[in-house]
């Protein structure tokens, strides 16, 4: 269980997060929506230990994530709109590099298995620079799954993907969800985000403005709720 309490990130008078509170149960998929500047990315960065909060804490199974950040990162997989891949290396070399960083024991077997799973088994020895955006994103999924993480952070993974590639990504997220992994997804796309979610949250100005179970809405109802929430937050 991920427990976020009073999370604040500020510099002087500028606030990115203002006392954010949130809980995510184990094995659920939470989708976070919100306009630009709502604090979604800042939240994900802190959750990934890339940035430190000014105040507040994130506990996972009761333990502060910064208390033993190295061990926590071992459980964490991140897929973002940036792929974290090196253009000049081949797909396989990229995966081998990252699996060395994670100290994965049966490296070659893991890399081969994942290349097959994301449908790049035949392209393993090609350089990443020759890949389409969709293929790169698939390789990026393989990269994030190398160490079999049970917590996944997905930061706008749909950016720049075509129809086919994003359907594939949705399929992957569904699969990960069925494996009972905890998933936190940030997206601008209401329909796609709602489709894979167990729960949804709307961020506004560094706080959770609305949260609910995803099953409660149809697409249309949710769209209405989202626009009302965002508009309501502006006027008060």
């Amino acid at each position, binding site marked *: 269980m991920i427990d976020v309490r009073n999370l604040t990130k500020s*510099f*002087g*008078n*500028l606030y990115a997060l203002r006392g954010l509170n949130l809980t995510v149960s184990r094995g659920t998929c939470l989708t976070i929506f919100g306009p630009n*500047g709502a604090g979604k990315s800042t939240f994900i960065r802190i959750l990934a230990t890339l940035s*430190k909060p*000014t105040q507040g804490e994130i506990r996972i199974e009761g333990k502060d994530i910064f208390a033993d950040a190295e061990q926590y990162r071992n459980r964490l997989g991140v897929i973002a709109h940036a792929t974290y891949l090196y253009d000049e290396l081949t797909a396989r070399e990229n995966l081998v590099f990252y699996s060395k960083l994670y100290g994965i024991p049966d490296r070659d077997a893991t890399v081969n298995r994942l290349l097959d799973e994301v449908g790049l088994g035949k392209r393993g020895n090609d350089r990443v620079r020759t890949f389409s955006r969709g293929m790169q994103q698939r390789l990026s999924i393989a990269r994030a799954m190398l160490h079999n993480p049970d917590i996944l952070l997905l930061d706008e993974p749909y950016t720049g993907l075509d129809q086919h590639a994003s359907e594939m990504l949705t399929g992957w997220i569904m699969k990960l969800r069925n494996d009972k992994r905890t998933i936190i997804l940030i997206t601008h796309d209401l329909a796609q985000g709602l489709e894979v979610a167990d729960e949804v949250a709307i961020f506004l*100005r560094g706080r959770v403005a609305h949260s609910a179970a995803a099953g409660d809405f149809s697409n249309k109802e949710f769209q209405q709720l989202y626009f009302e929430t965002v508009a309501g937050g*502006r006027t008060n």
Partner: protein
Amino acid sequence: MLTDSKSQRVENVLGLLLFLGMLMTLYNVFIYAPTEKSMGDVQRIFYFHVPSAFIAFLGFLVCAGYSVAFLIKRNHRYDRVAYVSAEIGVLFSTIVLITGMIWARPIWQTWWTWDPRLTTMFILWFLYIAYLMLRNFTGEDERGARFAAVFAIIASADVPIVYMSIRWWGDRMMHPKPVLMGDEDSGLAPEMLYTFLFALAVFLILYFYLMMLRLRQERTAEILNSMKKNLALHEE
């Protein structure tokens, strides 16, 4: 609240003291202090040159100290003090270099020489020009502040290293030895000593006055910026 009335009062008192002190210093330097035997009237620049050097080093020391404090505590007030102090340091090191050249021309028959003290001051000046440029080319966010703090720490460690390496370079010492705490034969006449110490005290007041002034300015700018940002959010 834009102004804090207590610090405003301190600022006013300092301003008054400074005005009177400056008048006294001018009287001391040009009328009260006796003319130096071998150098003549040009020696009087010493009463501005040496206190400026003190303030320059003080400014950089404060900058480095507050940079360390900022990295540990992440309080943006510390960052503000470091920034403002470096600015004042650049101003006074410029004065040191210029007054030094004016003095050196008649005494050494040259504007400049690569003496360890001169060179160190010159490099110090470069280091903090770089510091100010770095601040200009990063955002006014926490990351920009962290970059500047890291550079200030490296730069302040560099200053003694520069001095040492130039002393090893060879015997090029031309700069007069420190008149205070120097050798026995390098003392000052009592009137000169009094004039010097008085000027030093006035320069210290000047430093603190400038600090307060600039800090207030920066605070006001920050408040204005956050107001602008809030307005922009409402209009969106």
